[in-house]
């Protein structure tokens, strides 16, 4: 019960302090909207909007979660308020879950902004919404844990942004969203398979356009493995770097 109270209040505070702040809400809407508009103006055909939807959704989650989590945790580390959390009796596992759940939910909400925008322009029939929802959840989890990994690896807020981009931009181009995996050189394609976004984006492609390349169970299994590995790696890093 005590853990539940602490968990809930950490998450609630983060929501109020960070995720529900007007700049972040507007960013969460403007970012996918700008991308949608850009592609829509370029293509001007309903089919293309549907084709680009998986990419916009995946990018909205990736950029939303990694930016916010890595920056907020680095900020709390700098102001030493994160020490207050480490000094409280809640276990490190629960503390990390509480800190990341807000970002995961933020990522999930972000993912559906492009869907809502797309509904104004096109009909979206024959979509497997269960797989869409599940893949959104897993992309949000892996992206958030990637943000956590970044936050634990840096000490300054500007470093968190720079380091995030170091991961994010190669991921976007290597995950098969813009260049199909089959068209990538073999050694680059190999690298793609070590990126969680590859599996998340492929799941979205399968669910929305039925043109994914990896089977659904394999993608989900690999995303679960990525989530666990990233979480445990970040936890280990916190234990070694922040509880020195």
């Amino acid at each position, binding site marked *: *019960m*005590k*853990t*539940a*109270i*602490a968990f*809930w*209040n*950490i998450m609630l*505070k983060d929501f109020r*302090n960070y995720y529900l702040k007007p700049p972040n809400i507007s960013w969460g809407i403007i970012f996918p909207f700008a991308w949608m508009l850009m592609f829509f103006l370029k293509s001007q055909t309903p089919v293309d909007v549907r084709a680009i939807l998986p990419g916009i959704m995946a990018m909205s989650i990736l950029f939303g979660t990694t930016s916010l989590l890595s920056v907020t945790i680095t900020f709390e580390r700098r*102001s*030493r*308020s994160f*020490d*207050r*959390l*480490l*000094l*409280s*009796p*809640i*276990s490190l596992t629960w503390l990390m879950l509480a800190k990341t759940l807000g970002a995961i939910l933020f990522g999930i909400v972000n993912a559906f902004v492009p869907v809502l925008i797309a509904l104004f322009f096109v009909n979206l029939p024959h979509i497997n919404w269960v797989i869409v929802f599940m893949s959104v959840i897993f992309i949000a989890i892996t992206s958030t844990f990637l943000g956590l990994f970044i936050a634990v690896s840096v000490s300054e807020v500007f470093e968190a942004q720079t380091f995030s981009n170091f991961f994010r931009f190669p991921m976007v181009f290597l995950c098969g969203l813009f260049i199909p995996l089959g068209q990538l050189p073999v050694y680059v394609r190999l690298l793609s398979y070590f990126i969680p976004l590859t599996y998340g984006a492929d799941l979205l492609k399968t669910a929305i356009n039925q043109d994914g390349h990896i089977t659904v169970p394999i993608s989900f299994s690999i995303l679960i493995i990525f989530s666990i590995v990233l979480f445990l790696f970040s936890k280990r890093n916190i234990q070694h770097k922040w*509880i*020195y």
Partner: protein
Amino acid sequence: MEQHILKVENLTKKFNDFLAVDSLNFSVLKNEIFGFLGPNGAGKTTTINMLTGLARPTSGSIFFNGKDYTAHIKKAQEIIGIVPDESNLYEELDGFENLCFCASLYGIEKTEREHRARNLLRQFNLTEAGKRLYKSYSKGMKRKLTIAAGIIHQPSVLFLDEPTTGIDVASARQIRLLIKSLNETGTTIFMTTHYIEEAERLCHRIAFIVKGQIIKIGAIHDLMEDAQKEAIIQFSFDGIVQLSQFEYDFLQQFSQCKLTHIQESVFQVRSAIAHDLMSLMSFFDSRGIKVMEAKIIKPSLEEVFVKITGIEREVMKKEKEGKKK
């Protein structure tokens, strides 16, 4: 029998080859204020971090209420409160919200944490400020609220790291009074400080720590008695008195004494043995020197500290000023 709330055995912390804390052994008694006094880099904060769970000891043991918590200090965090050397509450929350949030970290229910937050704001004279954002607080107010946050879960032992460093005199005084009253209501306090006067005023027992080692530990009056190797009596005379007027005769009569001119018409008589004040007074009277005041000088804690550690007051003062900046 005296009850130890905290006991530390051979506590050591190494950072690669650097020995930050070297085999500390001490215990803190229930309901006492225990002071850790030493210069910057002495190992005070590292020790607190190990005792509270922000650092892992390289070796040694930590006991709370007789139970070994070294390997799982997290379990002891329910009974300890921490006020770090820098205020670390949330700038975006107001005072009341900050206290409530800190209480929630200890699993305290909403109604109870709000009740405790209101009481603490009242006790710390922050009722009005409680509605304002923390970032608008002065340094002294921030410090007070950080202390309130450290005790909202009613810990058995409170760790205070440099509680008055960098704040104005009036706020520092208020905080000292708060520490006293917390202790009087049953909270054991472990505090580190640069301020010798603060340690002297507040602490029941003190440990002098230098370069990671405890040089001396004990109750203040014991430390002072140990350091008092000579009796000092200070005389203030009426009018201008020259040492040459009485020095020769004085040393003839009191051969074991030393005379020191402190300032115009103020002299100190030092000796390894305690002299009868009346015989000294009679000596001056016989030479027509009117004594305005005579007082026995006891060594200050500062003198004891300098004597034991070899660190001059100026060094501590410079560090204090450096820390303020």
